[in-house]
């Protein structure tokens, strides 16, 4: 599919414009009374309106037109950019977005309401801003046109009229070049003009008048000092004076806005699906290269082996490049949260400040998209439950503004994203009570603090006494956890009562390709993500015998719970003599996996399992091996949890 629907092209550009408009408005709210910002927002609205009309988004264009008019008044300094006005425009922006994405059907009432609101706020904010007005200047403009100008449709009277629209003018025509009557060709233009113009408009506005004839005429524009202009009738030529209100030149600005919107020619737009396709191809290439490597290593043909190595190197580089291509800075995500915080602050009546760190940290594009909802929920939660009201904060000796800090940093092969708040911290008693009430915890059972906090992620758990519209939208903490785990990541909480809470998400850097340890259990081959592997030790037959029926194995000085994968997978095959113990961990918890053989390292292109296997939690995916066979990828988090369960059960039973 090479041609894109023009409406889709517009949608893509519109999204960017709306994003910029929003960011600009948010910056304005934060008190930066910047003329540049106001101009930028105005330009964004202007371009959106124009292009919208162009591509048939009529409702959008009409609606945006009103916002643009309102904002134009801010731009001109007629109206101050009050917080209420900004909020009204922000709401309008959301409506615009809805018009772009979902269409105009059924939105008329909403639009009307927003505009009414906008106008109301506008009336309140009316009053000149302390903006600097442009200084009026006096210009001398001398120009003459080529002889064929009028034949070619250029009307000198139109030019003069346009100059008059810029300000008071004194026009003098020169007939010096006009030939004698006998030689005069009536359609030729031999007049020249000198115009003295007094205007607050910039020089560019004057040049704009002559834009169509600029190349072929003589034109001089000169600023002169303090000459009083009396707007006089044109003496020589009969001029049809049409009174024009003082207008700025929106045409010029429109062009400028378009030029600005189109700059950034260093990048190329690529539809996201193309990137995904490319990624798939690279994945298949890696698989094919793996097979080639196998064939080559079994062959004595040195030329083949050398080419195979070369292909391996190239495939690796291509893969690395693809990884980078799909990487996007997390600032795109963090940017959205500024708006969220602004709205939350307004809705909860709490002053909230969001600070971000590590915005340049890059993540795979798809990961970022999937992180959006969980992070939004966590932020809402922190704003809703974590942060206290201004009164409470004052009473506690804290600054009125609640602090939310979002940070992202690379750590090895992972990205660690943290959200901290300086609120009231998690109430352990409440959590405990709810956990016992939901049957997740036996009353009075001993449990570590970390485990207690993890209860929050259990399905059905919510300490909110009222489900506020903010947090309770069916996106519970358990869904957050599941989403993170779906990204093969982990989520942790720490919290200090009275001081705040700290959520930490660890996500592996890439979704599609990981390094794995290939092992054999019975007749099947399996892959263990290398990042999770702590160590591999040999399991001697004696040790094996000693551990039969037990669930813990002694590793140096420690006991590690372990799982015999052969049993777990019900292979029903006799024991092998040289089993191995692969100790894997999720960072805090460990489990040992007993396998029949460790085959080796394997670079793995992860293939998703179909929905039919979605309930088999032991495996998080599959991969295709060099010989074309399939190896299932073990879900370490699940196995570790299984190991912990086993340990608990045996501990409870003994």
């Amino acid at each position: 599919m090479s041609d894109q629907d023009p409406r889709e092209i517009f949608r893509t550009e519109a999204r960017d414009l709306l994003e910029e408009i929003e960011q600009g408005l948010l910056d304005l709210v934060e008190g930066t009374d910047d003329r540049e910002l106001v101009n930028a927002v105005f330009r964004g609205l202007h371009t959106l309106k124009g292009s919208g009309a162009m591509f048939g988004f009529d409702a959008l264009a009409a609606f945006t037109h009103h916002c643009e008019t309102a904002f134009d008044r801010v731009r001109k300094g007629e109206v101050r950019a009050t917080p209420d006005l900004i909020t009204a425009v922000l709401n309008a922006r959301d409506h615009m977005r809805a018009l772009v994405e979902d269409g105009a059907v059924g939105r008329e009432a909403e639009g009307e309401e927003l505009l009414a609101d906008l106008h109301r706020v506008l009336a309140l904010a009316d009053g000149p801003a302390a903006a600097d007005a442009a200084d009026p200047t006096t210009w001398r403009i001398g120009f003459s046109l080529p002889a064929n100008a009028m034949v070619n449709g250029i009307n000198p009277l139109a030019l003069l009229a346009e100059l008059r629209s810029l300000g008071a003018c004194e026009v003098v025509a020169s007939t010096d070049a006009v030939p004698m009557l006998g030689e005069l060709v009536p359609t030729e233009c031999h007049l020249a003009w000198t115009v003295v113009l007094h205007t607050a408009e910039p020089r560019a506005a004057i040049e704009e008048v002559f834009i169509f004839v600029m190349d072929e005429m003589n034109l001089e524009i000169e600023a002169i000092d303090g000459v009083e202009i009396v707007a006089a009738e044109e003496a020589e030529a009969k001029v049809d004076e049409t009174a024009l209100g003082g207008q700025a030149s929106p045409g010029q600005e429109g062009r400028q806005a378009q030029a600005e919107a189109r700059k950034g020619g260093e990048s190329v737009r690529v539809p996201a699906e193309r990137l995904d396709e490319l990624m798939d191809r690279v994945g298949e290439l890696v698989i094919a290269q793996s097979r080639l490597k196998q064939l080559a290593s079994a062959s004595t043909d040195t030329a083949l082996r050398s080419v195979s190595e070369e292909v391996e190197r190239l495939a690796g580089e291509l893969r690395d490049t693809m990884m980078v291509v799909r990487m996007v800075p997390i600032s795109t995500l963090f940017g959205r949260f500024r708006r969220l915080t602004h709205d939350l602050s307004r809705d909860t009546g709490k002053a909230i400040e969001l600070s971000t760190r590590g915005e340049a940290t890059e993540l795979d594009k798809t990961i970022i998209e999937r992180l959006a909802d969980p992070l939004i929920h966590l932020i809402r939660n922190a704003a809703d439950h974590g942060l206290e009201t201004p009164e409470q904060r004052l009473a506690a000796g804290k600054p009125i503004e609640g602090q939310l800090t979002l940070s992202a940093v690379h750590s090895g092969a992972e990205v660690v994203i943290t959200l901290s708040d300086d609120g009231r911290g998690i109430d352990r008693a409440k959590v405990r009570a709810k956990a016992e009430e939901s049957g997740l915890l036996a009353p009075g059972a001993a449990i570590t603090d970390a485990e207690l906090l993890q209860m929050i992620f259990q399905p059905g758990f919510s300490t909110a006494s009222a489900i506020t519209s903010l947090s309770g939208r069916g996106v519970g903490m358990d869904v957050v956890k599941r989403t993170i785990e779906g990204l093969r990541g982990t989520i942790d909480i720490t919290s200090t009562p009275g001081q705040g809470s700290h959520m930490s998400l660890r996500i592996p850097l890439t979704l599609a390709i990981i390094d794995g340890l290939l092992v054999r259990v019975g007749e099947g081959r399996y892959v263990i993500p290398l990042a999770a592997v702590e160590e591999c030790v040999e399991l001697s037959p004696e040790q094996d015998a000693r551990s039969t029926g037990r669930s813990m194995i002694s590793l140096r000085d420690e006991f590690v719970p372990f799982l015999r994968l052969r049993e777990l997978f019900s292979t029903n095959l006799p024991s092998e003599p040289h089993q191995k113990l692969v100790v894997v961990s999720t960072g805090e918890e460990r489990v040992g996996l007993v396998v029949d053989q460790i085959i080796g390292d394997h670079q793995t292109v992860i293939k998703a399992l179909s929905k039919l296997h979605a309930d088999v939690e032991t495996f998080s995916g599959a991969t295709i091996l060099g010989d074309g066979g399939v190896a299932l990828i073990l879900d370490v988090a699940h196995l570790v949890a299984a190991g912990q369960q086993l340990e608990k059960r045996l501990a409870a039973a003994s």
Partner: protein
Amino acid sequence: MNQPDANLNAEDLVEVLTFDLRRETFALEAGLVREILDLTAETEVPGAGAFVGAVINFRGKVIPVADLSFAFGLGQREATRDSRIVVVELDLDGDPTLIGLRADKVHEVATLSMAATEAAPRVGMRWRQDYVRCVGRRGGEPLIIPDLACIFAHRGEPGASAAHIHSLH
């Protein structure tokens, strides 16, 4: 009564692929079929259950292999030279999914006249009624048109009754 539902095109004639599982013959819409494979290296999925106990590599994708004979309680299979895997593309919860269906023997693509089919009988069926869309005839023998959507929605669970009251033969 099971009606031949509107999923099949409204016209009377449908192209179907016919294949055997044990002693029964089944038909499915030829339009669903992507490829017919010889038996190839399979990878068992521990814990997956008998209906979709394995996966295979199909053109670089890892796809499940489903055994309809489990859904219909037809007993154990024995791989023979004629065994095949019929790769179809089905809509699972809104997502187009590639699935390999086991077949003991694949026959021809035939043209089936929907008008000539009957609804599955209410009594005398060994299997879940909702798994059978309708029944036709092929060479005098019954030809079962399974309701794949229903079977997969239930993950091939064979259902309580396996009592032989009648067979269709």
